């Protein structure tokens, strides 16, 4: 069977055909408008973009919070794990300087202790300044004194034995090895991280459900278009791909907007925190929670969340469409 060729053999023209076959003109260069073949109702599409943007914003903030907690936790561990302090309490019956020297001497004898530094009186007083204010004469106050021990990470120390020796030799001194605090802070940080991850997962599930419902709505609204596409030779794979592309675009738009909003909010909070950091309260907060910043990796995570949301939008719409088309046939 030969195929029709309207290029080689134009339609026969007669009087009636006047104006039917038109003169050739130059070929337009921008014929295709790149319209999606399956129209997603613009109002529903916009609503979905807003929902995805809000969900991405929440997920990105949760991920950023979790990341910040992880970084702070890492900082605490790095700062305190290799450090111990001996606290020598003032006792009117004892000479605190002698106790301090004896405790430092005992500490130096412990294997694994790299350095021992008795914090001078002026420095200890300075530690109290944020609470008591500057310019006070603290000489009359029973201010405890501190000895800071730096541990050699490689060598193991028998801290229990050292603690008992210290208590026996210098009754007013106690050893604080910080591990309890590190443990508690780590547990708290891990809880925050887990909660952050759980929120991200829940938000992703919510985004997937929103896209699934939106896809079903779009399919129902495009039933005629889908049938026409079938009858002009489109297979299910092609139609699913069209829907998928459409929803990936919507997902990227929503995810991008939500991610951008999250980045702006985090950056703004970071800027506010740094502007506020001159105050002693901010110093305390920073010591506790670390700097209010998520770094480039944090921003990377926010972008990743937005991309994952878009990918989920595409995947879920594809699966939903395939399921729907199967049911239709």
């Amino acid at each position, binding site marked *: 069977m030969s195929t029709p060729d309207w290029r080689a053999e134009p339609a026969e023209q007669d009087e009636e055909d006047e104006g039917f076959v038109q003169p050739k003109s130059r070929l337009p260069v921008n014929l295709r408008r790149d319209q999606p073949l399956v*129209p997603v109702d613009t109002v529903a599409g916009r609503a979905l973009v807003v929902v995805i943007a809000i969900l991405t914003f929440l997920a990105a903030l949760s991920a950023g919070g979790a990341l910040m907690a992880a970084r702070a936790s890492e900082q605490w561990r790095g700062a305190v794990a290799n450090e111990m302090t001996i606290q020598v309490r003032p006792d009117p019956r004892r000479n605190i300087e002698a106790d301090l020297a004896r405790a430092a001497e005992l500490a130096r004898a412990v294997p694994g202790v790299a350095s021992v530094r008795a914090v001078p009186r002026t420095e200890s007083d300075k530690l109290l300044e944020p609470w008591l204010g500057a310019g006070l004469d603290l000489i009359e106050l029973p201010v405890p004194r501190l000895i800071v021990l730096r541990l050699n990470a490689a060598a193991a120390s028998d801290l229990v034995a050292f603690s008992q020796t210290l208590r026996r030799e210098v009754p007013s001194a106690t050893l604080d090895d910080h591990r309890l605090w590190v443990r508690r802070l780590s547990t708290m940080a891990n809880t925050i991280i887990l909660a952050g991850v759980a929120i991200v997962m829940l938000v992703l599930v919510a985004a997937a459900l929103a896209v699934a419902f939106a896809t079903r709505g779009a399919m129902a609204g495009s039933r005629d*278009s889908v049938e026409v596409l079938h009858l002009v030779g489109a297979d299910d794979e092609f139609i699913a791909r069209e829907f998928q592309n459409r929803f990936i675009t919507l997902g990227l738009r929503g995810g991008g907007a939500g991610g951008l909003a999250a980045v702006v909010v985090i950056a703004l909070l970071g800027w506010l925190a740094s502007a506020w950091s001159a105050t002693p309260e901010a110093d305390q907060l920073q010591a506790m929670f670390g700097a209010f910043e998520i770094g480039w990796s944090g921003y990377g995570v926010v972008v990743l969340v937005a991309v994952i949301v878009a990918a989920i939008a595409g995947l879920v719409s594809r699966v939903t469409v395939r399921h729907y088309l199967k049911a239709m046939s």
Partner: protein
Amino acid sequence: MGPEVLKDINFSIAPRSFQYLTGPSGAGKTTLIRLILMALKPTRGLVHLFGQDVSRLEATTLTDFRRKMGVVFQDFRLLDHLTVYENVALPLRVLGKEEAGYRAEVVELLRWVGLGERMHAVPSVLSGGEKQRAAIARALISRPQLLLADEPTGNVDPGLGRRLLRLFMELQTLGTAVVIATHDLALMEQYDAPRLVLADGHLHVDA
């Protein structure tokens, strides 16, 4: 299950043939076309297309058969959000062809059916005749082996109807088997061709 619309129907369409499918309104012409298009499954009986029984095929395997057929719907069924050009190019686009590869061909066909100046218009601003021609161009663009046209002159004036009929005759001479469903006697009198007449659910061939 409702009453049988079509029963004891037996006919075949030869390659490069031209025939009318006729009968009163409601006789089942559109149903028969939908059966050939595999948009409906027969409750019983066989439908052979291009040498193969397709009445029991899975929906996923029907696409290859549909790509050999062009269809002009009674209500045009153009996609309203696409331009005339995009509607006509649809069968090529769904095949995954690059737009640059078929642009000239689509434009040429649009000029051939007299829509060269309307290719950027959307269906909502087209007249009935223009929609009809766009629908016909869409059915022809993939150079089908079988063309099914359901009341292709139902919405146009007699002059345009005659021009469209000539278009179908030209197609047949170029190698396509053509089935035109119509109850327009005046149209059928213009060009003598076998008539598949549907009445009371039965079909007889009026050669």
